[in-house]
Structures are given as structure tokens and as C-alpha cells.
């Protein structure tokens, strides 16, 4: 059985990669995908702990996170589409003003 620490290290690396994506990319959709990567990293950590302690609560929490992520992606992408219709751009450096 692979150590839980190994899974936690992997989860941490993916989380940090997601953080870098959120901070560094200009495209709003890329930022969104990096947020999804961070959520996947936490799902991995939760599943590793669930296996270590033999409790299904970890799996259920992952199930809830996936559900909430699905809802959030739907709403977020709808927002991006609506913004794109008015601003014709999804470069977040150009969208930082709340006008229009």
C-alpha cells in the first residue's frame, strides 16, 4: 500500500500548479481550468485520507465537491460568455474595470 504521504505530496504539487495557473494566465477560461485543477488536487487528498482511516466520509466529501464544481463551472462559464458578448474579450487584464 502506497503511503498516504505520497498521495499528499502529489496533491500538493497539483494544487501549487493550479495556483500558478490562476495567478499567471491572462485568459479567463485558463484561470477557470486552473481552479478545477486545484479542486482535483484536494479531491485526491481527501480520497487518500479516506483510505487511510477506512471511512467513507472522505469519498462523500469528494462527491459533494465534484457536484459543487460542476455547478460552479456552469455558472462561471455562463458569466464569461455574457461578458464576452459585451466586451468582446476575455483577457482578464482588460476586464478589471466594472463598467459596461
Amino acid at each position, binding site marked *: 500500500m*502506497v503511503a498516504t504521504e505520497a498521495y499528499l505530496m502529489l496533491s500538493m504539487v497539483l494544487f501549487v500548479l493550479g495556483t500558478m*495557473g490562476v495567478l499567471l494566465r491572462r485568459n479567463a477560461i485558463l484561470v477557470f481550468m486552473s481552479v478545477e485543477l486545484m479542486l482535483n488536487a484536494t479531491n485526491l487528498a481527501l480520497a487518500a485520507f479516506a483510505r487511510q482511516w477506512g471511512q467513507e466520509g472522505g469519498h462523500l466529501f469528494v462527491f459533494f465537491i465534484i457536484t459543487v464544481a460542476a455547478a460552479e463551472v456552469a455558472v462561471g462559464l455562463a458569466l464569461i460568455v455574457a461578458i464576452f458578448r459585451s466586451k468582446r474579450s476575455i483577457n482578464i487584464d482588460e476586464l478589471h474595470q466594472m463598467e459596461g
Partner: protein
Amino acid sequence: MTEFWLFIIAAAIAVLFAVLMLLNENAVHSALSLIVTMVSISFLFLLLDAPFLAMIQITVYAGAIMVLFLFVIMLLGAEKSESPDMPGPGTTKFRWFTGAAVGLTFALLASIGLSIINSQVDSREIPIADPQVRVGHFAPDVGAVDVYAGETQVADDLLFGETTSFVSLPAGENTLRVVPVDGGAELSTTVTLEGGSVQTVLAYGVDAVEFAVIPQDFSTVTEDRTSRVMVFNANPNVTVRMVDMGSELVADDTRDLIAGVPYGQVSDVTLLEEDTVQWTFVDDAQPDNILYRLRDYELERDTMQLVVFTPEREFDGSLRDNVYPLASETAPSFGGPRAIGYALFTTYMLPFQLLALLLLAAMVGVIVLTHRETEKVGAKVGGRRRVSRPLVNVIAAQTGTDVTEDGAPEGSPTAGD
């Protein structure tokens, strides 16, 4: 060792494609790299004994969410958004504070890594669960009883043949008291319980009531479509054997299922397949002497059956053998859909329903956000509905005459007289 190398390969693929997702100029390529990452995370879920999560990850994340991303990327033409001819500060794909951000995230990585290593996650002890006990009433001459475990009352008015539900007791010595409702002598026994065990205590015996402590194994049944069966003999006069008589048309079709069980003893655990069974209990010394026939009993899969063979006091005062199968479900396999379903529909029902409401609100929100007003098709002209081919024109074309004139047209066909 194989599991370790599978983990390394899956982890390497996940990290590699996550990095590719970050560094790619084309948004579609980034989305596809993220899909590969999610599939490799799904494989890691399989390594973590979470088959249900692996399926959900593929179905929902890689199959729905990422497809939605791809739809929106295509819709917006966003894969071209990093092209050099877009006006903006600089044409690099990263933002102006790249250096500071990378430095800070590496600091985050170092701090989390150190805390994981220092916390020594793997050496934590998993606490052992409290032992669980239930009591069964199989003493023919004792009426309804109240059962007490320690000081708390476990069951009220327990009749012959019934058992209490499982109770968690502290490990170590515990006193179980069986008090007849109509007065009469109180019977008690002291049992020593280990942590993590599941026991059934049966009160049996015709003349003097004794207690049998039977440990039961409720762990996951690994064989397909089978159940565990144990037989307990509460009849002092015989050593019982459980057989399957087979078909009545074929002679010598008897199959021994469970060998001779002496009085007050429980048999070993036997694995039997799920079926509608006809169990016959015979005297071990004289196999032709049939003591009881259990007809058409539905043996289900993934259960633990404790079959109690006991004499029962009839209304006329005589003793007759009877069989009580105590069936309980074993633990579902960890991480499988049945285990997740049990937890989801009992303990976690409220979050489940709240999430359903959340999803409904999200769907409504998406429709509201993306709705825009368009010109209504079929606008009215002059108060009348504008249609493409008025019916008058259709009739005129089919009859060959101009219907708009007054009076019936010439040569109209009579109706077959």
C-alpha cells in the same frame, strides 16, 4: 511493488499534463491536457480503493465539465485570444507579476511539503471501534424479557425467537441482564468484549438457561453471490446436521451442508450461494430422522446467517423443534457504490438534498445569464398573423380556379351520388 510503480506512472502523467496545460498557448490544447490529467487522477482513485469516485470523476469531470469548457472555448473563439495582434500590454501569455508569483508559489509548495513531512501522517493510529453486541431470546420456558446491558435497557418485551438490535458497548467486561417481564428469576452473564468485534449472545436452554457468546464476522464477503452461514444448536437431546435433501425424484441426492453441531455449540462458518434453499435438519446419529424442514427460504447474498435450531414450547405444552435464521447484512465493500449509497441516504441526506437544490439554482442561473432578447418570429402585420402561404392560395392552386370570387366554382365535384 506493482502498486508503487503504477502510482509513480499515474502521478508523473498527471503532473506532466498539468504543466503542459499551464504552458500551452492554445486554449483547446490546454483543455485536452487537463482532460488527460483528470483521467490519470481517476486512475489514482482506483489505486485508492475508490471505484465509485473513479467512475464519477470520468463521467462528471472529464465527460461533462471539460466538454462544457471546450464548448465555451469554441463558442468564444478563445483559442485565438493569445495571438500577437491583440492589443494589450505586451504579448506574453503570462501576466506582469510572473516572477513574484512563481516565487511565492514555490514558497507555498515548500511550506506545505514540510508540514506534510513533519506531521507524520502515516504513523497515526487508527482507533479501534467499540464492540457491538446483540442478545437473542431462545429459552423456551421463559416468557417475554427485558434486556439490560450494564445499566441501559437494550430491549423491551423481547419474545421468544426475537433478537435485539446491535448495541455498542465499551470494550472489556460487561454484564448483560435478562429480566423476565412477569417476574421470575433474573438471568445475567458477564462477557468480555474485545474492541472491534461483533458478538451475538443467545440465551438458550430448556431446564437451565445458559448463555452462548458467538462472534460473527460481518466483514465484506469477497466471493460472488455468497453468504456466510452458521448453525447453533439449542436442542439438548440431539446433535444436529443440516443437509440439502435435493430432489425427491432422485434417490441419494442428499448433500451435507453443515456437519454435526453438538448442543450449545455453533458450527464453523460455511459459504453458501444465494438461492431459494430447502434446508433439512436431521439427527446426526440417525440421518433418516428428520427433525425440521425449512422450506423455500430465500438465502440472499452478502449476508451473515446465524441459524438457531431450538425447541419451542407449543400451546399444548409440548416441545417442538423450530429454526430461526438470523440474517444480517455484511459490510459493503469499501468505496463501492453500495457503501457510498448507504452513507449518502442515511447520514448525509441533508447535504445531498441541499446540493440538488444548488444544482437546480445553478441551472436556472445559467439560463438567465445567457438568455438574450431576440426578434420574435411570426410578427403580426396589420393585426393579422403573417403566414407564408395563405390557405386561399393553396386551395386555388389545387383546384385550378380562383376561389376568392363569390359563388361556387364551376364544375365542382359532387360527392359521389
